């Protein structure tokens, strides 16, 4: 009967409280009630008269059920009681409003053949699982102590779908290929091709079409290679999970985990689904992929949360994607696949959108503008020509040739190729680029947000200091230090050997192939090994008899071991103050002495100091006695303090300095309290030069802050402390709001939205989670943040180089237009014929421009501030410069034309000499375009570009061939060239370069931008 409810639940399959604020009544929305009189009557009759319910009234139009009960019963439990009653009656879960907001919005994805299952599955029930007792959870999921039967599991898998996260959509090959044609210059060329085809210029059409195709193919190939590179990175998640089914423990493939499955949790296990704990024994879980918290979180199946309990505090829940770091337990899977917390975050990632990259915008704009401009010029050349009485077809051909020459159709190809070559170069340097535009965005990064845990630090604990009453020893990766001297710890202080023994024995970690244990215990074991302890021998020699773990009322751990001589060794480590309380004696350089008040005070002060220095501190003590339980707790011998921290990776301070030198601000984001953050920030030099203030924004609740206020505050901040990873998105958005181009590092699942929103999302290759890697723009494959500097240098150089190519293309094309303009204005014979124009275009456009794109980074590229992301790649002052330079080139060509015309009269010869001069001048101009800062006169200070030398050489050779090889000469209709002409041509080609470079030098000296 009650199945009637579930049959109509297309929209909603849970009960929802509409109103329960008035004493004595509760209104609940019941799915399937709409126009269902039978269900209505049924509900009313079944509920009325039960447990104090006075009246039940169901409305078949609003689908609401009103239940009234004696107001005197309204002790707060009644609504819950009714809710439970309804749950039983209808077999549907009751969901509070808050949780239903969290429900992942389901997008109506059009069915694709490849994934037909996408919309067929039933949604998984959502509940506030952490607020329910274990037995209720088991009831709801119809699980049992024996786990699901294979049959039930199969049925659930078909009902709810496999336990997989939705993968990120990939662009298809066709989409990539088609995207290459979506630019204005290509459209312009298409029109030109059509026109010249219509006027019978088949050869021209073929040339134009092939130019377009070549460009598109280059773009397609490079972009596809990049996509492939990224996709080839591979998956990192384990493939199987251990569950109990049919009462047996078994290993099943990860996607086969279904809601209701009983999960077996043991150290090192990857948690395959969100699950409610049913049993736990000292269970700790590393939730850093989800919450970014690097220390393991203690879990307890007995805990009961409230509705608003934060994810990280739900001690009775474990979540997909996290791993067990210690202890063991059982849990029942409550959500799988897209319905897990990780799954929800992935969906959120799908919603945050990335801003369009500056260069995309610029190249689009410029392409459009230049297409318009050259159309205008072509039309006017055409019109002037017609007015001057030239024949129509000839003018049409000239105009089209000019259009082809004028449009920098090489630009998209040059830009794409430069970017793609940059990607390859970066890949060689371990920087994997995921988005093509990210390359140039790298060059404009103004702020880099660094995640402390995992990015600046190694995300593993290490012992950094050992403090006994006799000596104060620093532990560095290189060894043990006393003062500045490297020492053998056992020679300096006799207390250290027993101390290390305690650290080995009172420790559950193993450093075998598969590391187990908490980060703290691993660190302690490591320092003992470094000091020279043989862990295996020691543990075998003194087998543990009894271990008392840390507990709520016992902030220390004691393990008792049998000694070879029949006595017993008790090893104690724990909270320094408490351990000290247990001690009567202390070890001074190995001699056992009384622990005087003064010495106690010394220890406590030392503890306070280390604590203030952001270290995690443990006290260590031991005792040897005749009986196993003989160590009366107050008779321990104090050994010393051990200080640990999540150490910074080497070289980070230098890295920060490099960022600063490059004009990039650094922001550290950490969950630490602000004193810890300050001491780390100071060591890193986040405040830049000494004496500048270090600003810290400390907030555990950034979401409470108005975004515009936050945007106002972030300007100076170098550190965000006590921030949870979920707030990174807010920080990125606030920085962007304040007008900055932001790079963000992160590798946790929770970092996804922030990485996507940042202009450059950076993740470290090996450690990054799938989510982080799939949304990141840049992946540092060698796991080293230092590589980011390389990435930025390359990014800047690539942008510079695109600028150089652009500069070259525009100024040379302009000179062609100018020559043609002069030609029509003067009247008479054309200076350059259409074939010559296309030839110039062919040999002077692509190759030198490509070679310029390969220019090595200029020496000062990391000493300049980042470029203004809003500045155009070619600014207004650049246009003036382009016109100036092109006019000088034009003047050179026209000079040669004048000389030749005076000598040979108007006709083929003068045109030929102008053509030769113009081509060579353009080729030489490539050297002018190599830098805006240095000229050919400071050749020593700039790196050589062999590609350019070869490209110019090749082009010059082809030009010489054109003049010498009869078939080409015929095609281009070239006249003879004498030795005197040659000198004139060389002068016409070389002088413009010298003049342009001289102007650059003069402007530089008088402080103008060149």
């Amino acid at each position, binding site marked *: 009967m009650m199945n009637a409810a579930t049959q109509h639940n297309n929209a909603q399959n849970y009960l929802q409280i509409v109103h329960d604020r008035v004493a004595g009544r509760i209104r609940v929305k019941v799915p399937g009630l709409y126009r269902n009189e039978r269900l209505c009557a049924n509900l009313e009759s079944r509920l009325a008269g039960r447990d104090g319910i006075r009246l039940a009234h169901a409305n078949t139009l609003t689908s609401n059920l009103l239940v009234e009960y004696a107001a005197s019963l309204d002790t707060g439990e009644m609504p819950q009681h009714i809710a439970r009653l309804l749950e039983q009656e209808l077999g549907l879960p009751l969901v509070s409003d808050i949780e239903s907001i969290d429900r992942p919005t389901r997008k109506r994805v059009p069915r694709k053949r490849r994934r037909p299952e996408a919309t067929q599955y039933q949604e998984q029930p959502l509940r506030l699982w952490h607020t329910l007792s274990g037995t209720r959870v088991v009831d709801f999921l119809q699980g049992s102590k024996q786990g699901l039967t294979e049959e039930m599991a199969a049925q659930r898998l078909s009902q709810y779908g496999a336990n997989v996260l939705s993968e990120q959509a990939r662009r298809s090959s066709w989409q990539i290929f088609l995207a290459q044609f979506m630019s204005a210059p290509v459209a312009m060329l298409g029109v030109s091709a059509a026109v010249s085809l219509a006027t019978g210029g088949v050869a021209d059409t073929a040339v134009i079409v092939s130019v377009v195709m070549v460009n598109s193919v280059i773009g397609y190939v490079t972009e596809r290679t990049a996509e492939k590179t990224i996709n080839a990175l591979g998956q990192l998640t384990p493939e199987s999970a251990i569950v109990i089914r049919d009462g047996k423990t078994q290993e099943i493939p990860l996607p086969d985990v279904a809601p209701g499955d009983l999960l077996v949790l043991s150290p090192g296990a990857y948690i395959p689904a969100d699950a409610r704990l049913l049993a736990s024994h000292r269970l700790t879980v590393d939730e850093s992929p989800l919450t970014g918290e690097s220390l393991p979180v203690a879990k307890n199946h007995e805990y009961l949360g409230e509705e608003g309990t934060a994810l990280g505090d739900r001690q009775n829940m474990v979540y997909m994607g996290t791993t067990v770091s210690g202890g063991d337990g059982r849990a029942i899977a409550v959500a799988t696949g897209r319905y897990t917390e990780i799954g929800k975050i992935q969906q959120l990632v799908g919603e945050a959108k990335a801003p369009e990259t500056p260069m995309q915008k610029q190249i689009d704009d410029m392409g459009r503008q230049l297409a318009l401009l050259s159309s205008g010029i072509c039309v006017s050349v055409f019109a002037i020509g017609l007015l001057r009485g030239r024949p129509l077809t000839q003018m049409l051909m000239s105009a089209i040739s000019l259009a082809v020459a004028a449009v920098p159709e090489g630009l998209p190809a040059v830009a794409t190729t430069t970017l793609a070559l940059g990607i390859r170069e970066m890949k060689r340097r371990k920087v994997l680029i995921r988005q093509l535009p990210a390359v140039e965005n790298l060059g404009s990064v103004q702020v880099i947000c660094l995640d402390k845990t995992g990015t600046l630090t190694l995300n593993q604990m290490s012992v950094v200091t050992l403090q006994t009453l006799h000596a104060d020893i620093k532990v560095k990766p290189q060894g043990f230090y006393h003062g500045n001297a490297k020492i053998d710890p056992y020679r300096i202080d006799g207390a250290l050997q027993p101390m290390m023994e305690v650290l080995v024995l009172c420790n559950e970690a193993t450093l075998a192939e598969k590391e187990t244990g908490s980060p703290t215990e691993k660190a302690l074991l490591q320092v003992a090994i470094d000091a020279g302890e043989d862990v295996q021998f020691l543990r075998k020699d003194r087998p543990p008899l009894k271990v008392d773990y840390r507990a709520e009322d016992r902030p220390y751990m004691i393990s008792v071991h049998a000694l070879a001589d029949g006595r017993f060794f008790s090893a104690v480590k724990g909270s320094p103050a408490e351990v000290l309380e247990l001690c009567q004696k202390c070890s001074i350089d190995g001699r056992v002495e009384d622990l005087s008040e003064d010495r106690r005070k010394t220890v406590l002060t030392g503890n306070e100091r280390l604590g203030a220095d952001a270290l995690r501190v443990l006290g260590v003590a031991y005792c040897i006695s005749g009986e196993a339980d003989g160590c009366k707790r107050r008779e321990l011998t104090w050994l010393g303090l051990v200080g640990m921290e999540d150490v910074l990776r080497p070289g980070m301070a230098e890295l920060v300095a490099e960022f600063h030198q490059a004009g990039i601000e650094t922001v550290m984001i950490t969950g630490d309290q*602000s004193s810890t953050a300050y001491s780390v920030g100071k060591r890193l030099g986040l405040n830049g030069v000494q004496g500048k203030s270090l600003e*810290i*924004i400390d*907030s555990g609740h950034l979401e409470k802050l108005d975004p515009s206020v936050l945007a106002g505050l972030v300007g100076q901040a170098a550190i965000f*402390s006590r921030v949870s990873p979920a707030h990174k998105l807010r920080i990125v958005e606030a920085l962007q709001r304040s007008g900055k181009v932001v790079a963000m590092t992160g590798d946790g699942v929770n970092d996804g939205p922030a990485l996507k929103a940042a202009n450059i999302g950076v993740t470290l290759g090996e450690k990054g989670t799938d989510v982080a890697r799939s949304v990141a723009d840049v992946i540092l494959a060698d796991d080293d943040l230092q590589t980011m500097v390389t990435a930025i240098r390359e990014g800047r150089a690539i942008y510079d180089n695109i600028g150089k190519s652009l500069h070259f293309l525009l100024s040379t094309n302009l000179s062609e237009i100018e020559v043609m303009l002069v030609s029509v204005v003067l009247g008479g014979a054309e200076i350059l014929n259409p074939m010559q124009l296309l030839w110039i275009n062919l040999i002077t456009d692509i190759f030198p421009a490509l070679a310029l794109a390969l220019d090595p980074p200029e020496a000062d590229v990391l000493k300049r501030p980042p470029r203004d992301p809003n500045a155009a790649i070619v600014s207004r002052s650049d246009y003036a410069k382009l016109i100036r330079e092109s006019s000088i080139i034009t003047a050179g060509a026209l000079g040669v034309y004048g000389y030749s015309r005076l000598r040979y009269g108007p006709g083929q010869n003068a045109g030929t000499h102008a053509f030769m001069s113009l081509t060579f001048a353009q080729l030489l101009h490539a050297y002018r375009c190599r830098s805006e800062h240095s000229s050919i006169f400071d050749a020593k200070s700039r790196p050589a570009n062999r590609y350019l030398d070869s490209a110019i050489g090749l082009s010059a050779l082809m030009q010489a061939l054109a003049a010498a090889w009869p078939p080409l000469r015929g095609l281009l209709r070239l006249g003879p060239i004498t030795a005197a002409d040659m000198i004139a041509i060389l002068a016409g080609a070389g002088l413009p370069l010298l003049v342009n470079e001289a102007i650059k030098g003069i402007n530089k000296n008088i402080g103008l931008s060149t």
Partner: protein
Amino acid sequence: MITDFVFTSQSVTEGHPDRLCDTISDAIVDGFLRQDQTSAITAECALSKNVLFLAARFASEAIVDMPELARTVIKGVGYRPEDFDAAECTVVSSHIEQTKSPRDIVFADLEDDQIDRISVAHQTTVFGYACRHTPELMPLPISLANRLARQLSQTRRDADIAYLSPDCTSQVGVEFVNDGPSRIDSITLVIGCEDTGSPPGFARIEEDLRHYVINPVFKNAPIKPDNLTRITINPNGPYRRSGPATHSGMTGRKTDSDTYGSFARHCGAALSGKGPSRIDRAGAYAARYAAKNIVAAGLAEQCEVQLSYSIGFPGPVSVCLTTKGTGVIDDMEIRKRLLRHFDFRLGAIIRDLKLQELTQSHCGAFYQKLPANGHFGADGLPWERTDKAGLLAC
């Protein structure tokens, strides 16, 4: 000369944003001195809505979690979370770390010639004042205004008035006849009302305040409000909201109620947020110490001591005082005795008043209690001792 007049002074409770900022600044001073008594520290604080700004310049071995300290202070004041939530507010802190100067040493056992080598680093003219209006030798108007403010806080802490917010202000007008206080002219209290479901009526507020605040303050006072005393409570109506949600705060904006309620001159510089080596704080305490001892010695009815310091000098470049004609001996003679028995050099002030040790000897919290309890006039402050009165008298 007009000798009959009314003088008003005003004060605020510990939950007033300005006072809160003072307290936070001083808690930071305590935080540093607790770990390292030679710390040099200047801390300033501003507060608006749910953002707290901290700026600290320091030279110290200590590591202090300033945001946490600030939150502890805010929590202690006890705003309702909707007005100001200590845990949820954002703290923006600016840290400037400096290297210790020769001034940042232990002063306790310094010899005279060593003190001579320690010069002041700030230029300031500070004043100290004392008069016979009250047993603690403070002007009556500010003394009463402060006491009312403290009583308001106490009432709230004892939960006697449920709707009382931590942010209130008080003002007292005292009528002077022949330069002496003769009666209470007016009392004005502006209290924040917290929403407790049923807003209290005016009559209830007035009755509560008379019963729990005004009467206790004047219980043993020689001058009590009379029938003609104008008692005004919330003249602009009950404030629904109060605290940082409605108005911002800043360190050093309540210097008149910190000092003498404008009854005497005071240096405009803030007292709070400055470590012992700041002469504008230490000097103000020393000047009060001097003035109080002169009045306690019976040399005058009132006395104002002025000390001027210039950068680079160890002691004041000018020491002056006035008794406004109430001295039993000539002011010149008083000054002579003053200079004989008091050492106003920075190092001597720090050493004699034990400014470096106070935090540690008061269980880690000394300076942060001053903004709410009063920098002057309160019990147990070293500069409130009258141990040199005997020396000055002869």
